[in-house]
């Protein structure tokens, strides 16, 4: 049966929800959106987008390595993402001279090496290219109930980490030197954050595909930070945006047969561009009002 989109949204939704795979996809998408957007909010605050992207690509060698040795793909995702987080944490802290340029060279090299490894695994496995496409761009078909449960556990663990360490992490992210002077363990925190980031992207990559995790990580947080400087409302807005773009993406993808990733990223860029335009406009009005007054 070919689904068609009508103007009656409630009948569209109920048509969609008749399929168990779609229910699973929506559940998984919701869990992933909440988790990825919260982690992403901290990632954007800490200016670690490049690290986040690199960790999300770690899922690729993870999945292809698991294919090669016949292990579970989910396990491969988590093992490689965690390992990548530890390597990057070690590389950017233990290298003697500490500067931003060097750190980004470490991250870039780790990323390229991981992808090269993934490609090697894939060609040793003598390439199944359809699965490559799913791996890279995601698929909401065939998400099992077991997968949803795993995602839920990872998401709860991630949120628990932020509930416990959120405050010191925020302090360390905003002003690292003052935080260290106040006995906040900044090094342990930054390593722990990278690990949590690794786990979160490994979980997210199973739904959005390796290449598009990033859309859920960075775009909602970036949009929210354009609109409000507050912490509480910023986080809430981030989660709301992530949920909205995920649901819209899944729904449109169901009705059109184009990939979820395209719709999610397009919705994200539209929101981000509008937020930027809104802020620029508000800034100009504010300046004009000040000129009038003076």
């Amino acid at each position: 049966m070919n689904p068609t989109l009508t103007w009656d949204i409630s009948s569209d939704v109920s048509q969609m929800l008749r399929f168990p795979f779609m229910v699973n996809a929506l559940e998984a998408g919701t869990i992933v959106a909440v988790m990825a957007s919260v982690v992403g909010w901290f990632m954007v605050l800490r200016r670690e987008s490049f690290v986040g992207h690199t960790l999300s690509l770690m899922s690729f060698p993870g999945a292809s390595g698991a294919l090669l040795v016949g292990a579970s793909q989910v396990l491969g995702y988590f093992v490689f993402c965690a390992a990548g987080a530890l390597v990057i944490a070690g590389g950017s802290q233990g290298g003697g001279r500490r500067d931003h340029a060097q750190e980004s060279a470490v991250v870039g090299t780790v990323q390229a090496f991981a992808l090269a490894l993934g490609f090697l695994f894939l060609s040793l496995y003598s390439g199944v290219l359809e699965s490559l496409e799913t791996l890279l761009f995601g698929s909401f078909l065939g998400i099992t109930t077991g997968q949803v449960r795993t995602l839920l556990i990872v998401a709860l663990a991630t949120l628990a980490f932020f509930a416990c360490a959120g405050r010191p992490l925020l302090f360390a992210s905003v002003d690292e030197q003052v935080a260290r002077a106040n006995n906040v363990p900044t090094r342990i925190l930054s390593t722990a954050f990278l690990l949590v980031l690794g786990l979160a992207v490994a979980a997210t990559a199973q739904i959005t595909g390796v290449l598009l995790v990033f859309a859920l990580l960075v775009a909602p947080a970036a949009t929210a930070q354009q609109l409000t400087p507050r912490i509480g409302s910023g986080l809430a807005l981030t989660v709301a945006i992530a949920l909205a773009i995920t649901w819209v993406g899944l729904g449109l993808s169901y009705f059109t047969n184009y990939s979820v990733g395209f719709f999610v990223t397009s919705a994200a860029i539209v929101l981000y561009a509008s937020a930027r335009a809104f802020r620029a406009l508000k800034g100009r009005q504010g300046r004009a009002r000040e000129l009038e007054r003076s």
Partner: protein
Amino acid sequence: MLAQEFIRNALLAGSFVAIACGLVGYFMVLRSQVFAGDALSHVSFTGALAAAAAGLDLRFGLFAATAAIALLLALLGRRAHADDVTIGTIFAWVLGMGALFLDLFNSGSAGGSGITGSRALFGSIFGLSAGAAQLAAVVGVVIVLATLLIARPLLFASIDPIVAAARGVPVRALGTVFLLLIGLDAAEATQAVGALLLLGLLAAPAGAAHRLTASPYLGLALSGLLALLSMWVGIALSYQIPSLPPGSAIIAVASGLYLLAFIGTSRASRRLFGS
């Protein structure tokens, strides 16, 4: 080994791609723009797929897409230096477009998309024709010459943009030109090592050179040399071991060199050798 035509083509194209990546990469690391390079290298994948979906020459798509996004990034950032959130958001969107083009291409023509997709992602330096190799070499020479031409003012503008601007160096224009150069270089290198792997050729030799020497011109030369070495050794390794894909081999060698440089200059080894 050199009797094989595909190896000669690979070495010709690969050498110039490597030198271009080494030189551009040196400035990219110096200016902390590795993430921009990462984004532009992924953009080239979308470009290739878009060209494939529209039935155009792949190279046209590569160069057009990377140049357009490079200009967009330059436009959106202060001093042509976009912040990482902007880069990240745009680049996620461009990848989403890539997914769409892949879908369009899959539904449009019969078969072959998997091969096009994987060639764009991971490169196929052994599959270059003599004409393609010569063109890649020419583009490589152009990128190298352009980099060397702007090397002095770019160095000044990268190390101290405020003083450079006060001395009349066009910092913003240089930043834009440099982003365009990264874009061109990404499009060029995609043909050899693929969109996903070329970051290694940009970041690893340059990162190693930055660790090994603080002198900019020496570093620039060293970065080019290390990239060239990675390319040659990678091609040779991949020729000897047929199951090792060339892209993986080249990046593995480059990463290995970086790891050596990292260990050699790390705190522990300095303590050990007392320098």
